[in-house]
């Protein structure tokens, strides 16, 4: 899973302009404007799934902060 760390550093490099990717122009964002292309999802649905996984697995994190705990068994 070094891949993940690599992807993260890659994204950082792109952002800081170390690579030569051409910036996408506002009028080229037709596909990016589709709801499925944003990282926003139905908040209740996302919470349900995240909650179920965090109460059945010992792994959590990555998507938000300060969600509050539970006594999940």
């Amino acid at each position: 899973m070094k891949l993940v760390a690599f992807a993260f550093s890659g994204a950082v490099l792109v952002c800081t302009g170390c690579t030569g990717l051409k910036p996408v122009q506002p009028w080229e964002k037709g596909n990016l404007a589709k709801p499925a292309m944003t990282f926003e999802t139905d908040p209740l649905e996302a919470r349900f799934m995240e909650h179920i996984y965090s109460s059945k697995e010992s792994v959590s994190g990555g998507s938000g902060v300060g969600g509050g705990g539970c006594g999940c068994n």
Partner: protein
Amino acid sequence: MLAVSKISTMAIAIILAGFSLHPAMATESGEMAPEFILPGQSGQEVRLSDFKNKVIYLDFWASWCGPCKQSFTWMNSMQTKYGAQGLQIIAVNLDAKAEDARQFILENSSNFMIAMGTKTSIPATYKIKVMPTSLLIGQGGKVIERHAGFRDDDKSALESSIKQALMHR
């Protein structure tokens, strides 16, 4: 709650310190609107300077942009209401796929002028950052006002700017 307010103050400070939030807009008020010649929807030429005796409402739009669609209805009513007083609306399409634009134009009738600006340097020249963006251009070709986005509560301010521009014509 003390902790919360401390945290939020910190966060605001970080945001304000690190980033300048008010970039200068290009093709600002007072500048001359750059000339263009673009194909119209039925192949005729649309040349900006042909309308130098009119007040021009120049709009940049794409079929995939929701607010652009809302602005079409409003632009129709503005063209009807103020056309006789010298308003000309020109809507420049920037769709990547010509077919999408054609479909949109078929489904949304318009009584103003449409020009096809895809794959031209026009949106870059006009420094378009947000879809839609509109410019109100006075007689003589000077930019009076630039507006990004289109919301219901923008309508009255935009209309009064148009009225004012027509009065000074």
